Protein backbone atom coordinates (compact mmCIF):
# COMPACT_ATOMS: atom_id res chain seq x y z
CA UNK A 1 0.00 0.00 0.00
CA UNK A 2 1.35 3.37 -0.92
CA UNK A 3 1.29 6.29 1.45
CA UNK A 4 -1.53 7.93 -0.41
CA UNK A 5 -3.61 4.79 0.01
CA UNK A 6 -3.38 4.95 3.75
CA UNK A 7 -6.69 6.69 3.65
CA UNK A 8 -8.08 5.48 6.94
CA UNK A 9 -8.68 9.03 8.06
CA UNK A 10 -10.71 9.80 4.99
CA UNK A 11 -12.85 6.72 5.04
CA UNK A 12 -16.45 6.89 6.06
CA UNK A 13 -17.25 5.01 9.23
CA UNK A 14 -17.08 1.33 8.16
CA UNK A 15 -19.72 0.37 10.69
CA UNK A 16 -22.11 2.81 9.12
CA UNK A 17 -21.40 1.54 5.62
CA UNK A 18 -21.73 -2.04 6.82
CA UNK A 19 -25.42 -1.40 7.42
CA UNK A 20 -25.87 -1.50 3.65
CA UNK A 21 -25.91 -5.24 3.45
CA UNK A 22 -26.48 -7.37 0.42
CA UNK A 23 -28.87 -10.30 0.22
CA UNK A 24 -27.51 -13.73 -0.49
CA UNK A 25 -28.01 -14.88 -4.07
CA UNK A 26 -30.37 -17.79 -4.64
CA UNK A 27 -29.03 -21.20 -3.74
CA UNK A 28 -29.52 -22.44 -7.28
CA UNK A 29 -27.69 -19.56 -8.93
CA UNK A 30 -24.66 -21.75 -9.66
CA UNK A 31 -26.80 -24.41 -11.30
CA UNK A 32 -28.58 -21.84 -13.42
CA UNK A 33 -25.31 -20.30 -14.43
CA UNK A 34 -23.88 -23.66 -15.45
CA UNK A 35 -26.98 -24.38 -17.53
CA UNK A 36 -26.44 -21.11 -19.37
CA UNK A 37 -22.75 -21.81 -19.75
CA UNK A 38 -23.47 -25.19 -21.33
CA UNK A 39 -25.90 -23.57 -23.77
CA UNK A 40 -23.56 -20.75 -24.69
CA UNK A 41 -22.35 -22.32 -27.91
CA UNK A 42 -25.79 -23.12 -29.17
CA UNK A 43 -26.68 -19.58 -30.06
CA UNK A 44 -29.35 -19.65 -27.44
CA UNK A 45 -30.16 -16.58 -25.48
CA UNK A 46 -28.33 -16.40 -22.22
CA UNK A 47 -31.41 -15.04 -20.49
CA UNK A 48 -33.86 -16.99 -18.51
CA UNK A 49 -36.99 -17.53 -20.48
CA UNK A 50 -39.25 -15.78 -18.04
CA UNK A 51 -37.23 -12.66 -18.44
CA UNK A 52 -37.14 -12.97 -22.17
CA UNK A 53 -40.77 -13.16 -22.75
CA UNK A 54 -41.59 -9.89 -21.34
CA UNK A 55 -41.50 -7.37 -18.65
CA UNK A 56 -43.96 -6.97 -15.90
CA UNK A 57 -44.22 -4.81 -12.90
CA UNK A 58 -46.77 -6.76 -11.05
CA UNK A 59 -46.60 -9.95 -9.22
CA UNK A 60 -49.12 -12.38 -8.08
CA UNK A 61 -47.65 -13.87 -5.01
CA UNK A 62 -48.81 -17.17 -3.77
CA UNK A 63 -50.17 -17.00 -0.33
CA UNK A 64 -47.74 -17.14 2.46
CA UNK A 65 -44.74 -17.81 0.35
CA UNK A 66 -43.28 -14.47 0.27
CA UNK A 67 -41.78 -15.11 -3.05
CA UNK A 68 -43.15 -13.91 -6.13
CA UNK A 69 -43.10 -12.73 -9.36
CA UNK A 70 -41.54 -9.59 -8.96
CA UNK A 71 -39.91 -8.32 -12.00
CA UNK A 72 -38.73 -4.98 -13.13
CA UNK A 73 -40.15 -2.88 -15.88
CA UNK A 74 -37.54 -4.05 -18.22
CA UNK A 75 -36.59 -6.65 -20.72
CA UNK A 76 -33.05 -7.73 -20.15
CA UNK A 77 -33.08 -9.74 -23.34
CA UNK A 78 -32.50 -6.50 -25.09
CA UNK A 79 -29.41 -5.41 -23.26
CA UNK A 80 -26.52 -3.95 -25.18
CA UNK A 81 -24.39 -7.04 -24.93
CA UNK A 82 -26.60 -8.99 -27.31
CA UNK A 83 -24.86 -9.81 -30.59
CA UNK A 84 -24.80 -6.89 -33.01
CA UNK A 85 -24.35 -9.11 -36.04
CA UNK A 86 -24.83 -12.72 -36.91
CA UNK A 87 -26.61 -15.31 -38.90
CA UNK A 88 -28.78 -18.22 -37.84
CA UNK A 89 -30.39 -21.03 -39.69
CA UNK A 90 -32.43 -23.23 -37.40
CA UNK A 91 -33.52 -26.81 -37.80
CA UNK A 92 -36.05 -26.49 -35.04
CA UNK A 93 -37.72 -23.72 -33.08
CA UNK A 94 -35.07 -21.56 -31.54
CA UNK A 95 -34.80 -18.29 -29.71
CA UNK A 96 -32.10 -15.97 -30.93
CA UNK A 97 -30.92 -12.96 -29.00
CA UNK A 98 -30.03 -10.03 -31.19
CA UNK A 99 -29.22 -6.44 -30.39
CA UNK A 100 -32.44 -4.61 -29.65
CA UNK A 101 -34.68 -7.59 -29.18
CA UNK A 102 -35.22 -11.28 -29.56
CA UNK A 103 -36.26 -13.41 -32.49
CA UNK A 104 -38.00 -16.72 -32.06
CA UNK A 105 -37.33 -18.59 -35.27
CA UNK A 106 -39.51 -21.51 -36.21
CA UNK A 107 -38.05 -24.66 -37.76
CA UNK A 108 -36.21 -24.06 -41.05
CA UNK A 109 -36.18 -20.30 -40.69
CA UNK A 110 -33.05 -18.38 -41.56
CA UNK A 111 -32.09 -14.85 -40.59
CA UNK A 112 -29.05 -12.62 -40.84
CA UNK A 113 -28.63 -9.42 -38.88
CA UNK A 114 -26.33 -6.48 -38.37
CA UNK A 115 -26.36 -3.04 -36.80
CA UNK A 116 -25.78 -0.22 -39.26
CA UNK A 117 -23.65 2.87 -38.68
CA UNK A 118 -26.64 4.75 -37.33
CA UNK A 119 -27.26 2.08 -34.72
CA UNK A 120 -30.34 0.60 -36.39
CA UNK A 121 -30.71 -3.15 -36.46
CA UNK A 122 -31.29 -4.75 -39.86
CA UNK A 123 -32.56 -8.28 -39.98
CA UNK A 124 -32.70 -10.13 -43.25
CA UNK A 125 -35.30 -12.84 -43.00
CA UNK A 126 -34.36 -15.17 -45.78
CA UNK A 127 -36.94 -17.83 -45.12
CA UNK A 128 -39.40 -19.20 -42.63
CA UNK A 129 -41.47 -17.90 -39.81
CA UNK A 130 -40.00 -15.69 -37.11
CA UNK A 131 -41.56 -13.95 -34.12
CA UNK A 132 -39.86 -10.76 -32.96
CA UNK A 133 -40.05 -8.77 -29.76
CA UNK A 134 -38.31 -5.46 -30.09
CA UNK A 135 -37.34 -2.81 -27.61
CA UNK A 136 -38.90 0.60 -27.97
CA UNK A 137 -36.85 3.40 -29.34
CA UNK A 138 -34.48 1.36 -31.44
CA UNK A 139 -34.37 1.29 -35.20
CA UNK A 140 -35.17 -2.27 -36.16
CA UNK A 141 -35.82 -3.34 -39.74
CA UNK A 142 -36.67 -6.80 -40.99
CA UNK A 143 -36.03 -7.18 -44.70
CA UNK A 144 -37.61 -10.00 -46.64
CA UNK A 145 -37.72 -10.87 -50.31
CA UNK A 146 -41.14 -9.24 -50.49
CA UNK A 147 -40.36 -5.98 -48.70
CA UNK A 148 -39.36 -4.60 -45.35
CA UNK A 149 -40.92 -4.34 -41.94
CA UNK A 150 -39.78 -1.42 -39.84
CA UNK A 151 -40.77 -1.71 -36.25
CA UNK A 152 -41.98 1.06 -34.05
CA UNK A 153 -41.42 -0.81 -30.80
CA UNK A 154 -43.41 -3.95 -30.86
CA UNK A 155 -44.06 -7.64 -30.86
CA UNK A 156 -44.82 -9.17 -34.23
CA UNK A 157 -44.40 -12.16 -36.49
CA UNK A 158 -43.19 -12.36 -40.07
CA UNK A 159 -43.95 -15.43 -42.13
CA UNK A 160 -42.19 -15.63 -45.45
CA UNK A 161 -43.12 -17.92 -48.30
CA UNK A 162 -42.64 -18.11 -52.04
CA UNK A 163 -45.81 -16.10 -52.56
CA UNK A 164 -44.88 -13.29 -50.17
CA UNK A 165 -44.97 -12.35 -46.51
CA UNK A 166 -47.62 -12.29 -43.86
CA UNK A 167 -47.02 -9.90 -40.97
CA UNK A 168 -49.02 -10.18 -37.76
CA UNK A 169 -48.65 -7.52 -35.07
CA UNK A 170 -49.42 -8.39 -31.46
CA UNK A 171 -48.25 -5.22 -29.75
CA UNK A 172 -47.21 -1.78 -30.96
CA UNK A 173 -47.00 -1.14 -34.68
CA UNK A 174 -44.81 -1.76 -37.71
CA UNK A 175 -44.41 -0.17 -41.10
CA UNK A 176 -44.54 -2.69 -43.92
CA UNK A 177 -43.03 -1.47 -47.17
CA UNK A 178 -41.91 -2.67 -50.57
CA UNK A 179 -41.58 -1.26 -54.06
CA UNK A 180 -45.35 -1.20 -54.43
CA UNK A 181 -46.14 0.86 -51.38
CA UNK A 182 -46.07 1.14 -47.64
CA UNK A 183 -48.53 0.87 -44.80
CA UNK A 184 -48.60 0.95 -41.06
CA UNK A 185 -49.81 -2.18 -39.31
CA UNK A 186 -51.01 -1.85 -35.74
CA UNK A 187 -51.56 -4.31 -32.92
CA UNK A 188 -54.24 -6.79 -33.79
CA UNK A 189 -53.75 -6.44 -37.54
CA UNK A 190 -52.42 -8.94 -40.02
CA UNK A 191 -51.34 -8.07 -43.53
CA UNK A 192 -49.94 -9.90 -46.50
CA UNK A 193 -47.38 -8.49 -48.93
CA UNK A 194 -45.78 -9.95 -52.03
CA UNK A 195 -42.91 -8.94 -54.23
CA UNK A 196 -45.31 -7.39 -56.70
CA UNK A 197 -48.03 -6.09 -54.42
CA UNK A 198 -48.22 -3.71 -51.50
CA UNK A 199 -49.30 -4.87 -48.07
CA UNK A 200 -52.98 -5.48 -47.76
CA UNK A 201 -55.09 -6.68 -44.91
CA UNK A 202 -55.58 -10.40 -44.96
CA UNK A 203 -58.96 -11.98 -44.38
CA UNK A 204 -57.80 -13.03 -40.95
CA UNK A 205 -60.25 -11.86 -38.34
CA UNK A 206 -59.43 -9.74 -35.34
CA UNK A 207 -60.97 -12.23 -32.95
CA UNK A 208 -58.34 -14.77 -33.85
CA UNK A 209 -55.57 -12.26 -33.29
CA UNK A 210 -57.10 -11.20 -29.99
CA UNK A 211 -57.10 -14.83 -28.94
CA UNK A 212 -53.46 -15.15 -29.89
CA UNK A 213 -52.61 -12.00 -27.97
CA UNK A 214 -54.45 -13.27 -24.95
CA UNK A 215 -52.72 -16.61 -25.19
CA UNK A 216 -49.31 -14.96 -25.34
CA UNK A 217 -50.14 -12.76 -22.39
CA UNK A 218 -51.41 -15.75 -20.42
CA UNK A 219 -48.35 -17.82 -21.23
CA UNK A 220 -46.13 -14.95 -20.23
CA UNK A 221 -47.97 -14.41 -16.99
CA UNK A 222 -47.93 -18.10 -16.18
CA UNK A 223 -44.26 -18.32 -17.05
CA UNK A 224 -43.55 -15.51 -14.66
CA UNK A 225 -45.56 -17.22 -12.03
CA UNK A 226 -43.74 -20.46 -12.56
CA UNK A 227 -40.40 -18.87 -12.03
CA UNK A 228 -39.94 -19.84 -8.47
CA UNK A 229 -41.24 -22.69 -6.39
CA UNK A 230 -44.49 -21.45 -5.08
CA UNK A 231 -44.43 -23.14 -1.70
CA UNK A 232 -47.99 -22.17 -1.17
CA UNK A 233 -49.89 -22.22 1.99
CA UNK A 234 -47.38 -21.46 4.58
CA UNK A 235 -48.90 -20.71 7.93
CA UNK A 236 -50.21 -17.34 6.97
CA UNK A 237 -50.64 -14.99 4.09
CA UNK A 238 -48.23 -12.14 4.76
CA UNK A 239 -50.60 -9.69 3.10
CA UNK A 240 -53.45 -10.33 5.51
CA UNK A 241 -53.92 -9.02 9.04
CA UNK A 242 -51.50 -6.17 8.61
CA UNK A 243 -51.21 -4.22 11.84
CA UNK A 244 -51.27 -0.40 11.93
CA UNK A 245 -47.54 -0.50 12.66
CA UNK A 246 -46.93 -2.69 9.65
CA UNK A 247 -49.04 -0.43 7.45
CA UNK A 248 -47.10 2.59 8.64
CA UNK A 249 -43.88 0.74 7.92
CA UNK A 250 -45.08 -0.10 4.42
CA UNK A 251 -46.13 3.51 3.86
CA UNK A 252 -42.64 4.69 4.70
CA UNK A 253 -41.33 2.78 1.71
CA UNK A 254 -44.37 3.43 -0.52
CA UNK A 255 -45.31 -0.21 -0.67
CA UNK A 256 -48.82 -1.49 -1.33
CA UNK A 257 -49.01 -5.27 -1.30
CA UNK A 258 -52.55 -6.60 -1.29
CA UNK A 259 -54.18 -9.96 -1.30
CA UNK A 260 -56.47 -10.97 -4.11
CA UNK A 261 -59.47 -13.28 -3.86
CA UNK A 262 -59.36 -16.53 -5.77
CA UNK A 263 -61.04 -15.25 -8.88
CA UNK A 264 -61.02 -17.82 -11.63
CA UNK A 265 -59.29 -17.43 -14.94
CA UNK A 266 -55.67 -18.25 -14.33
CA UNK A 267 -54.14 -21.66 -13.95
CA UNK A 268 -52.17 -20.43 -10.97
CA UNK A 269 -55.22 -19.15 -9.17
CA UNK A 270 -57.09 -22.35 -9.93
CA UNK A 271 -54.24 -24.23 -8.35
CA UNK A 272 -54.25 -21.95 -5.36
CA UNK A 273 -57.95 -22.45 -4.83
CA UNK A 274 -57.56 -26.22 -4.96
CA UNK A 275 -54.65 -26.19 -2.57
CA UNK A 276 -56.51 -23.89 -0.21
CA UNK A 277 -59.52 -26.19 -0.22
CA UNK A 278 -57.34 -29.17 0.35
CA UNK A 279 -55.35 -27.64 3.15
CA UNK A 280 -58.42 -26.48 5.03
CA UNK A 281 -60.42 -29.61 4.28
CA UNK A 282 -63.23 -27.65 2.68
CA UNK A 283 -66.44 -29.60 2.23
CA UNK A 284 -68.39 -29.60 -1.02
CA UNK A 285 -70.84 -27.12 0.53
CA UNK A 286 -68.06 -24.78 1.54
CA UNK A 287 -66.56 -24.95 -1.95
CA UNK A 288 -69.91 -24.09 -3.44
CA UNK A 289 -70.13 -21.12 -1.10
CA UNK A 290 -66.78 -19.85 -2.35
CA UNK A 291 -67.89 -20.34 -5.95
CA UNK A 292 -71.06 -18.35 -5.29
CA UNK A 293 -69.09 -15.43 -3.89
CA UNK A 294 -66.63 -15.56 -6.77
CA UNK A 295 -69.47 -15.53 -9.27
CA UNK A 296 -71.04 -12.61 -7.48
CA UNK A 297 -67.98 -10.39 -7.15
CA UNK A 298 -65.67 -11.32 -9.99
CA UNK A 299 -67.65 -9.74 -12.88
CA UNK A 300 -67.68 -6.31 -11.25
CA UNK A 301 -63.97 -6.41 -10.46
CA UNK A 302 -63.21 -7.69 -13.94
CA UNK A 303 -65.25 -4.89 -15.50
CA UNK A 304 -63.48 -2.34 -13.34
CA UNK A 305 -60.02 -3.58 -14.36
CA UNK A 306 -61.02 -3.68 -18.02
CA UNK A 307 -62.24 -0.10 -17.80
CA UNK A 308 -59.00 0.98 -16.19
CA UNK A 309 -56.97 -0.89 -18.80
CA UNK A 310 -58.92 0.75 -21.61
CA UNK A 311 -58.52 4.18 -20.07
CA UNK A 312 -54.80 3.65 -19.81
CA UNK A 313 -54.08 1.99 -23.14
CA UNK A 314 -57.00 2.76 -25.41
CA UNK A 315 -57.32 -0.95 -26.06
CA UNK A 316 -60.15 -3.16 -24.95
CA UNK A 317 -58.15 -5.95 -23.36
CA UNK A 318 -61.27 -8.06 -23.67
CA UNK A 319 -59.34 -11.26 -24.00
CA UNK A 320 -57.12 -10.64 -20.99
CA UNK A 321 -57.72 -12.29 -17.65
CA UNK A 322 -57.53 -10.54 -14.30
CA UNK A 323 -53.95 -11.39 -13.58
CA UNK A 324 -52.79 -10.27 -16.98
CA UNK A 325 -54.80 -7.08 -16.76
CA UNK A 326 -53.17 -6.28 -13.42
CA UNK A 327 -49.72 -6.97 -14.80
CA UNK A 328 -50.37 -4.99 -17.94
CA UNK A 329 -51.75 -1.95 -16.14
CA UNK A 330 -48.74 -1.80 -13.85
CA UNK A 331 -46.37 -2.44 -16.74
CA UNK A 332 -47.84 0.20 -19.00
CA UNK A 333 -48.03 2.89 -16.35
CA UNK A 334 -45.23 5.48 -16.52
CA UNK A 335 -42.72 4.82 -13.76
CA UNK A 336 -43.27 8.17 -12.08
CA UNK A 337 -47.03 7.63 -11.92
CA UNK A 338 -46.55 4.17 -10.49
CA UNK A 339 -44.25 5.44 -7.77
CA UNK A 340 -46.56 8.34 -6.94
CA UNK A 341 -49.57 6.04 -6.74
CA UNK A 342 -47.78 3.64 -4.45
CA UNK A 343 -46.79 6.50 -2.20
CA UNK A 344 -50.29 7.96 -2.06
CA UNK A 345 -52.20 4.71 -1.59
CA UNK A 346 -49.79 3.26 0.94
CA UNK A 347 -50.25 6.44 2.99
CA UNK A 348 -54.02 6.32 2.66
CA UNK A 349 -54.00 2.72 3.81
CA UNK A 350 -51.94 3.60 6.85
CA UNK A 351 -54.26 6.49 7.72
CA UNK A 352 -51.61 9.07 6.90
CA UNK A 353 -53.41 10.57 3.90
CA UNK A 354 -56.99 11.05 2.83
CA UNK A 355 -58.33 9.48 -0.35
CA UNK A 356 -59.70 11.97 -2.89
CA UNK A 357 -63.42 12.67 -2.45
CA UNK A 358 -64.20 12.09 -6.11
CA UNK A 359 -62.50 8.67 -6.32
CA UNK A 360 -60.10 10.26 -8.76
CA UNK A 361 -56.43 9.83 -9.40
CA UNK A 362 -54.44 8.05 -12.03
CA UNK A 363 -55.43 4.66 -13.35
CA UNK A 364 -52.77 2.88 -11.31
CA UNK A 365 -53.82 4.76 -8.20
CA UNK A 366 -57.40 3.64 -8.65
CA UNK A 367 -56.30 0.07 -9.32
CA UNK A 368 -54.30 -0.02 -6.12
CA UNK A 369 -57.07 1.64 -4.13
CA UNK A 370 -59.52 -0.90 -5.39
CA UNK A 371 -57.05 -3.71 -4.79
CA UNK A 372 -56.49 -2.99 -1.13
CA UNK A 373 -60.23 -3.10 -0.47
CA UNK A 374 -60.84 -6.26 -2.41
CA UNK A 375 -59.83 -8.80 0.20
CA UNK A 376 -62.10 -7.33 2.86
CA UNK A 377 -65.02 -7.16 0.46
CA UNK A 378 -64.63 -10.79 -0.50
CA UNK A 379 -64.12 -11.98 3.06
CA UNK A 380 -67.22 -10.15 4.26
CA UNK A 381 -69.27 -11.69 1.47
CA UNK A 382 -67.92 -15.13 2.20
CA UNK A 383 -68.61 -14.66 5.91
CA UNK A 384 -72.28 -14.37 5.03
CA UNK A 385 -72.12 -17.88 3.61
CA UNK A 386 -69.68 -19.49 6.06
CA UNK A 387 -68.66 -18.91 9.67
CA UNK A 388 -66.53 -15.77 9.82
CA UNK A 389 -63.52 -17.64 11.20
CA UNK A 390 -63.70 -20.11 8.34
CA UNK A 391 -63.88 -17.30 5.79
CA UNK A 392 -60.87 -15.63 7.32
CA UNK A 393 -58.96 -18.89 7.42
CA UNK A 394 -59.63 -19.33 3.72
CA UNK A 395 -58.50 -15.80 2.97
CA UNK A 396 -55.12 -16.62 4.38
CA UNK A 397 -54.55 -19.08 1.55
CA UNK A 398 -54.91 -16.51 -1.21
CA UNK A 399 -52.21 -14.90 -3.21
CA UNK A 400 -51.76 -11.25 -3.83
CA UNK A 401 -50.21 -8.49 -5.83
CA UNK A 402 -46.85 -7.15 -4.82
CA UNK A 403 -45.26 -4.33 -6.75
CA UNK A 404 -42.52 -3.85 -4.19
CA UNK A 405 -41.59 -0.60 -2.48
CA UNK A 406 -41.12 2.50 -4.58
CA UNK A 407 -39.30 4.80 -2.23
CA UNK A 408 -36.42 4.39 0.13
CA UNK A 409 -38.13 5.57 3.26
CA UNK A 410 -37.44 8.60 5.40
Amino acid at each position, binding site marked *: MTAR*EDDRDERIDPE*LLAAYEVPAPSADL*GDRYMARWRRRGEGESTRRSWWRIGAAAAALVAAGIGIGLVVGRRDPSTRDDAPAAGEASVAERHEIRIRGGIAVAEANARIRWHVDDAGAMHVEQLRGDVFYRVELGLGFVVETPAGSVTTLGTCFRVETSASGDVVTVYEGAVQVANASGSRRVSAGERVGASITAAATTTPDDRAKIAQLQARIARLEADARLAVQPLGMHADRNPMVDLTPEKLAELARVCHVPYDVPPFAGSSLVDRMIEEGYSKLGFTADERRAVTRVVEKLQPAYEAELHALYTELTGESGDALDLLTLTVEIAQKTPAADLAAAQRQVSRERAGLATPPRDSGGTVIERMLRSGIALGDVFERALARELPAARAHEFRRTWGGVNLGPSCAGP
Partner: protein
Amino acid sequence: LKVLAMTRVDAPAPAPARAASGGAGEIDDVTLRRAARGDEEANRAVFDRYKDRVFAYLWRMLGPRATLALVEDLTQDTFLRAFEALPRFSIDGPARLSTWLLAIATRIAFNELRRQRRRGGGATVELVEDSLRGETRTDQQAERRAIAARIATELGKLSPEHRAVFVLREYHDLSYDEIARALEIELGTVQSRLSRARAALRAALEDLR
Protein backbone atom coordinates in the same frame (compact mmCIF):
# COMPACT_ATOMS: atom_id res chain seq x y z
CA LEU B 1 -36.43 -4.17 3.02
CA LYS B 2 -35.20 -7.65 2.54
CA VAL B 3 -31.67 -6.44 2.58
CA LEU B 4 -31.17 -6.23 6.27
CA ALA B 5 -32.65 -9.58 6.97
CA MET B 6 -29.91 -11.16 4.96
CA THR B 7 -26.40 -12.02 5.76
CA ARG B 8 -23.60 -9.99 4.40
CA VAL B 9 -22.05 -12.03 1.66
CA ASP B 10 -19.07 -10.16 0.44
CA ALA B 11 -16.68 -11.16 3.16
CA PRO B 12 -13.45 -12.53 1.75
CA ALA B 13 -13.55 -16.23 1.07
CA PRO B 14 -11.00 -18.43 2.83
CA ALA B 15 -7.62 -18.34 1.19
CA PRO B 16 -6.61 -21.46 -0.74
CA ALA B 17 -3.24 -23.07 -0.30
CA ARG B 18 -1.88 -21.63 -3.51
CA ALA B 19 -3.66 -18.53 -4.65
CA ALA B 20 -3.69 -17.22 -8.19
CA SER B 21 -1.74 -14.03 -8.47
CA GLY B 22 -0.99 -14.29 -4.81
CA GLY B 23 -4.18 -12.67 -3.61
CA ALA B 24 -6.05 -13.76 -0.52
CA GLY B 25 -9.27 -15.52 -1.31
CA GLU B 26 -8.23 -16.19 -4.90
CA ILE B 27 -8.68 -19.53 -6.58
CA ASP B 28 -5.63 -21.71 -7.11
CA ASP B 29 -3.73 -21.58 -10.38
CA VAL B 30 -4.38 -25.19 -11.31
CA THR B 31 -8.15 -24.76 -11.17
CA LEU B 32 -7.88 -21.49 -13.03
CA ARG B 33 -5.87 -23.03 -15.85
CA ARG B 34 -8.36 -25.87 -16.10
CA ALA B 35 -11.19 -23.35 -16.27
CA ALA B 36 -9.40 -21.46 -19.02
CA ARG B 37 -9.28 -24.72 -21.00
CA GLY B 38 -13.05 -25.01 -20.65
CA ASP B 39 -13.18 -27.56 -17.85
CA GLU B 40 -16.73 -27.56 -16.51
CA GLU B 41 -15.88 -28.50 -12.94
CA ALA B 42 -13.25 -25.82 -12.73
CA ASN B 43 -15.63 -23.31 -14.22
CA ARG B 44 -18.12 -24.09 -11.46
CA ALA B 45 -15.41 -23.81 -8.83
CA VAL B 46 -14.45 -20.37 -10.09
CA PHE B 47 -18.07 -19.28 -10.16
CA ASP B 48 -18.68 -20.54 -6.63
CA ARG B 49 -15.54 -18.85 -5.37
CA TYR B 50 -16.30 -15.40 -6.74
CA LYS B 51 -20.03 -15.21 -7.25
CA ASP B 52 -20.80 -13.59 -3.91
CA ARG B 53 -18.27 -10.83 -4.46
CA VAL B 54 -19.51 -10.11 -7.96
CA PHE B 55 -23.13 -10.26 -6.85
CA ALA B 56 -22.50 -7.90 -3.93
CA TYR B 57 -20.68 -5.46 -6.16
CA LEU B 58 -23.43 -5.43 -8.78
CA TRP B 59 -26.07 -5.08 -6.10
CA ARG B 60 -24.50 -1.94 -4.75
CA MET B 61 -23.76 -0.58 -8.19
CA LEU B 62 -27.41 -0.83 -9.10
CA GLY B 63 -28.37 0.66 -5.76
CA PRO B 64 -32.06 1.25 -5.25
CA ARG B 65 -32.77 -0.36 -8.61
CA ALA B 66 -31.27 -3.68 -7.61
CA THR B 67 -33.55 -6.66 -7.59
CA LEU B 68 -32.54 -10.20 -6.86
CA ALA B 69 -33.52 -11.43 -10.32
CA LEU B 70 -31.75 -8.62 -12.13
CA VAL B 71 -28.54 -8.83 -10.13
CA GLU B 72 -28.42 -12.60 -10.46
CA ASP B 73 -28.86 -12.19 -14.20
CA LEU B 74 -26.04 -9.69 -14.35
CA THR B 75 -23.83 -11.89 -12.18
CA GLN B 76 -24.26 -14.72 -14.65
CA ASP B 77 -23.57 -12.35 -17.52
CA THR B 78 -20.34 -11.32 -15.84
CA PHE B 79 -19.08 -14.87 -15.54
CA LEU B 80 -20.20 -15.86 -19.02
CA ARG B 81 -18.32 -12.94 -20.44
CA ALA B 82 -15.34 -13.65 -18.21
CA PHE B 83 -15.11 -17.25 -19.33
CA GLU B 84 -15.13 -16.23 -22.95
CA ALA B 85 -12.13 -14.04 -22.20
CA LEU B 86 -10.48 -16.26 -19.60
CA PRO B 87 -7.95 -17.78 -22.02
CA ARG B 88 -6.62 -14.23 -22.45
CA PHE B 89 -6.39 -13.57 -18.71
CA SER B 90 -2.77 -13.56 -17.62
CA ILE B 91 -2.62 -15.93 -14.69
CA ASP B 92 0.93 -14.88 -13.92
CA GLY B 93 0.18 -11.20 -14.41
CA PRO B 94 -0.32 -8.58 -11.74
CA ALA B 95 -4.12 -8.59 -11.79
CA ARG B 96 -6.00 -10.76 -9.37
CA LEU B 97 -8.84 -12.74 -10.87
CA SER B 98 -11.28 -11.13 -8.45
CA THR B 99 -10.25 -7.65 -9.64
CA TRP B 100 -10.53 -8.71 -13.26
CA LEU B 101 -14.03 -10.08 -12.64
CA LEU B 102 -15.05 -6.88 -10.90
CA ALA B 103 -13.77 -4.95 -13.91
CA ILE B 104 -16.04 -6.98 -16.18
CA ALA B 105 -18.90 -6.56 -13.72
CA THR B 106 -18.33 -2.81 -13.83
CA ARG B 107 -18.83 -2.70 -17.59
CA ILE B 108 -21.93 -4.81 -17.27
CA ALA B 109 -23.29 -2.56 -14.52
CA PHE B 110 -22.58 0.55 -16.58
CA ASN B 111 -24.39 -0.96 -19.55
CA GLU B 112 -27.36 -1.81 -17.40
CA LEU B 113 -27.50 1.64 -15.81
CA ARG B 114 -27.26 3.25 -19.24
CA ARG B 115 -30.02 1.02 -20.50
CA GLN B 116 -32.21 1.97 -17.56
CA ARG B 117 -31.52 5.66 -18.13
CA ARG B 118 -32.36 5.34 -21.79
CA ARG B 119 -35.66 3.77 -20.89
CA GLY B 120 -36.51 6.43 -18.37
CA GLY B 121 -35.40 4.45 -15.39
CA GLY B 122 -38.50 2.38 -15.08
CA ALA B 123 -39.77 1.18 -11.80
CA THR B 124 -37.76 -1.46 -10.15
CA VAL B 125 -39.61 -3.72 -7.89
CA GLU B 126 -38.41 -6.17 -5.35
CA LEU B 127 -39.91 -8.69 -3.18
CA VAL B 128 -40.11 -7.87 0.42
CA GLU B 129 -41.11 -11.15 1.89
CA ASP B 130 -39.24 -10.65 5.11
CA SER B 131 -41.00 -7.44 5.89
CA LEU B 132 -44.29 -9.14 5.31
CA ARG B 133 -43.72 -12.19 7.38
CA GLY B 134 -45.18 -10.49 10.36
CA GLU B 135 -42.41 -11.09 12.83
CA THR B 136 -41.79 -8.22 15.14
CA ARG B 137 -38.70 -6.29 14.26
CA THR B 138 -36.67 -4.60 16.88
CA ASP B 139 -36.09 -0.88 16.79
CA GLN B 140 -32.45 -1.60 16.15
CA GLN B 141 -33.26 -3.61 13.07
CA ALA B 142 -35.59 -0.94 11.83
CA GLU B 143 -32.93 1.68 12.33
CA ARG B 144 -30.33 -0.39 10.56
CA ARG B 145 -32.69 -0.92 7.67
CA ALA B 146 -33.33 2.80 7.44
CA ILE B 147 -29.60 3.46 7.37
CA ALA B 148 -29.13 0.91 4.62
CA ALA B 149 -31.87 2.51 2.57
CA ARG B 150 -30.27 5.91 3.04
CA ILE B 151 -26.88 4.66 1.94
CA ALA B 152 -28.37 2.93 -1.09
CA THR B 153 -30.22 6.09 -2.03
CA GLU B 154 -27.22 8.35 -1.57
CA LEU B 155 -24.93 5.99 -3.44
CA GLY B 156 -27.52 5.94 -6.20
CA LYS B 157 -27.17 9.70 -6.52
CA LEU B 158 -23.50 9.42 -7.42
CA SER B 159 -22.61 8.97 -11.05
CA PRO B 160 -21.91 5.32 -11.94
CA GLU B 161 -18.24 6.19 -12.38
CA HIS B 162 -17.93 7.71 -8.90
CA ARG B 163 -20.03 4.96 -7.39
CA ALA B 164 -17.81 2.27 -8.88
CA VAL B 165 -14.68 3.78 -7.40
CA PHE B 166 -16.33 4.20 -4.02
CA VAL B 167 -17.78 0.68 -3.86
CA LEU B 168 -14.57 -0.96 -5.05
CA ARG B 169 -12.59 0.87 -2.40
CA GLU B 170 -14.94 0.88 0.55
CA TYR B 171 -16.68 -2.44 0.14
CA HIS B 172 -14.14 -4.51 -1.78
CA ASP B 173 -10.97 -2.98 -0.44
CA LEU B 174 -9.28 -2.75 -3.82
CA SER B 175 -6.09 -0.74 -3.95
CA TYR B 176 -5.98 2.47 -5.95
CA ASP B 177 -3.87 0.72 -8.58
CA GLU B 178 -6.36 -2.10 -8.88
CA ILE B 179 -9.25 0.32 -9.21
CA ALA B 180 -7.37 2.26 -11.86
CA ARG B 181 -6.71 -0.92 -13.83
CA ALA B 182 -10.23 -2.24 -13.37
CA LEU B 183 -11.86 0.96 -14.55
CA GLU B 184 -9.13 1.81 -17.06
CA ILE B 185 -8.58 5.26 -15.60
CA GLU B 186 -5.59 7.17 -14.28
CA LEU B 187 -4.54 6.86 -10.67
CA GLY B 188 -5.22 10.55 -10.17
CA THR B 189 -8.74 10.08 -11.45
CA VAL B 190 -9.28 7.31 -8.92
CA GLN B 191 -8.20 9.64 -6.15
CA SER B 192 -10.31 12.54 -7.27
CA ARG B 193 -13.41 10.44 -7.84
CA LEU B 194 -13.00 8.72 -4.51
CA SER B 195 -12.51 11.99 -2.76
CA ARG B 196 -15.63 13.50 -4.31
CA ALA B 197 -17.70 10.41 -3.66
CA ARG B 198 -16.64 10.31 -0.02
CA ALA B 199 -17.35 13.99 0.43
CA ALA B 200 -20.82 13.61 -1.06
CA LEU B 201 -21.61 10.57 1.03
CA ARG B 202 -20.19 12.09 4.18
CA ALA B 203 -22.32 15.19 3.78
CA ALA B 204 -25.43 13.20 2.93
CA LEU B 205 -25.03 10.83 5.86
CA GLU B 206 -23.88 13.42 8.35
CA ASP B 207 -26.96 13.10 10.55
CA LEU B 208 -26.42 9.36 10.93
CA ARG B 209 -22.99 9.57 12.45
